[in-house]
């Protein structure tokens, strides 16, 4: 380039209007068409086309032109007019930063010149990563606010689409990049580098590298603070704002659709209020109908149920004593029958069986004949065949009441 730096800068100042317009064209169309370039230059009445190319501000692309990235970024920065970038673009820093960091860590004791160069590059990468994040948050915020105020009078439907797209494609992925707890995030990588450089800024044999680590460490503290702030803007301000735009737009779109044809659309069901008056022409008849039902009273009698005989409870103590007094009993079952007949006129089978349980008392000694002998005992209509069991006097018959009280 033959021109002096100052000449180029002066040229930029002098013809800033043209350059700003070219910038706007490229921002919108992606390229500056040959005819458009001519039109813009003609409008400003200075033929500066040759200088634009000579100073390498414009570069030809086929038949059209493009502002060189350096100048484009410069104007973009001056105007603070950034387009939100897809987080994929920012994500690439993860690779470059991680790669540089890996090389630094692996060759920490290698060539000092290369190490110094790498540390320098890492610092540059981190700085440009941060700048990109900041620009993106800012531009998203501007765009969102613009959407909220609806400067461009966008349709509500379009608003929903935009809000949803920003949330899904920009804000959530960007937040992931800034999420320090996410192991694959750039923020997490930066934290790792920060710990590493903290260690080496204090303990490394080469002084130059130590100074560089120190610089990197403080840069990272600053960057971390800033990233945290950006992340907060995203989650506390941007996300709620854009979520609200989305809900509001959905509801408004619904209402506008509804109002296009309010009488043809089904509306939500609302309970109908019904008033039922208790007074009417028929009240008298209704009431008398009810009372008539009570007019013809029929006497109702309740027959008292007969009391059931009290439940018989087997008095084991009483009968054990009786058995003991009558020992020896030659035929236990007929003794049972006899005893019951004495106590009650009518022997019931239930009582008989209850009494026979005495024979199974452990304290009683039973004797059976050498040959089994059977008796027949008649209780009411029932004839029982029972074995002949003799119960003998015992030297010590334990009173069953012992140990109960």
């Amino acid at each position: 380039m033959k021109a002096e730096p100052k000449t180029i800068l002066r040229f930029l100042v002098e013809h800033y209007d043209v350059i700003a317009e070219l910038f706007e064209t490229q921002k919108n169309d992606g390229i500056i068409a040959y005819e458009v370039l001519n039109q813009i230059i003609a409008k400003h009445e200075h033929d500066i086309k040759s200088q634009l190319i000579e100073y390498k501000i414009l570069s030809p692309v086929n038949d059209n032109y493009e502002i060189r990235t350096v100048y484009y970024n410069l104007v973009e920065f001056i105007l603070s007019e950034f387009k939100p970038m897809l987080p994929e673009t920012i994500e690439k820093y993860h690779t470059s930063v991680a790669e540089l960091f890996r090389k630094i860590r692996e060759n920490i004791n290698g060539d000092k010149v290369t190490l110094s160069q790498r540390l320098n590059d890492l610092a540059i990468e981190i700085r440009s990563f941060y700048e990109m994040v900041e620009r993106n948050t800012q531009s998203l915020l501007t765009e969102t606010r613009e959407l909220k105020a609806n400067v461009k009078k966008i349709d509500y439907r379009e608003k929903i689409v935009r809000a949803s797209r920003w949330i899904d494609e920009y804000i959530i992925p960007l937040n992931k990049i800034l999420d320090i707890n996410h192991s694959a995030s750039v923020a997490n990588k930066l934290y790792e580098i920060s710990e590493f450089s903290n260690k080496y800024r204090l303990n490394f044999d080469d002084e130059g590298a130590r100074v560089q680590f120190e610089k990197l460490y403080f840069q990272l503290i600053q960057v971390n603070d800033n990233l945290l702030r950006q992340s907060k803007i995203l989650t506390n301000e941007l996300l709620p704002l854009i979520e609200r735009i989305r809900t509001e737009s959905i509801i408004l779109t619904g209402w506008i659709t509804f109002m296009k044809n309010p009488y043809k659309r089904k509306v939500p069901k609302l309970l109908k209020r019904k008033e039922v008056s208790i007074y009417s022409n028929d009240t008298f008849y209704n009431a008398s109908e009810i009372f008539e039902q009570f007019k013809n009273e029929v006497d109702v009698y309740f027959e008292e149920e007969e009391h059931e005989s009290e439940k018989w409870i087997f008095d084991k103590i009483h009968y054990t004593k009786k058995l003991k007094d009558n020992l020896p009993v030659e035929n236990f079952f007929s003794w049972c029958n006899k005893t019951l007949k004495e106590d009650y006129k009518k022997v019931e089978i239930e009582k008989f069986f209850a009494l026979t349980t005495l024979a199974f008392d452990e304290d009683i000694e039973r004797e059976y004949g050498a040959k089994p002998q059977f008796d027949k005992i008649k209780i009411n209509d029932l004839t029982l065949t029972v074995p002949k069991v003799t119960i003998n006097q015992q030297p010590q018959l334990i009173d069953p009441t012992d140990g109960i009280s």
Partner: protein
Amino acid sequence: MWSFNYELRLTQDYAYVVSEESAEMLSRDICIFIALLSYELDRDGKNFLERIQFSEFEMEEIENYFTNSSYIDLILSNKQLKDTDSRKNFINTLNRRNIIEKTGDNRFVFTSAHKFFMDFASDIVKYENAEKDE
């Protein structure tokens, strides 16, 4: 869930009963009222959802929005919304229906019941989108 033989629906913000016998005219007018108010608030640069949910309205403000609305044809064709007097009556109906709560002679706030209608509006969009997708 049922209550007094009506289906009772509970949401986080409001509860309501549904019946086959429904006051369709009233429901439609309420929808139109809230639709117009939301639209006008938004046009006025306000966060209509927040305003309806949290702040108090004065009848004068409502009158202003309705008389200057671009939906004037729709307003004039609606019996309950066509002029100041009918709108005043309509507000009293809303009050009886617990959709608003009067805080003074000419002032009121919306109850959570308004969300029932907001949900209806967002359902319109979902329903239409679903139809398009089919």
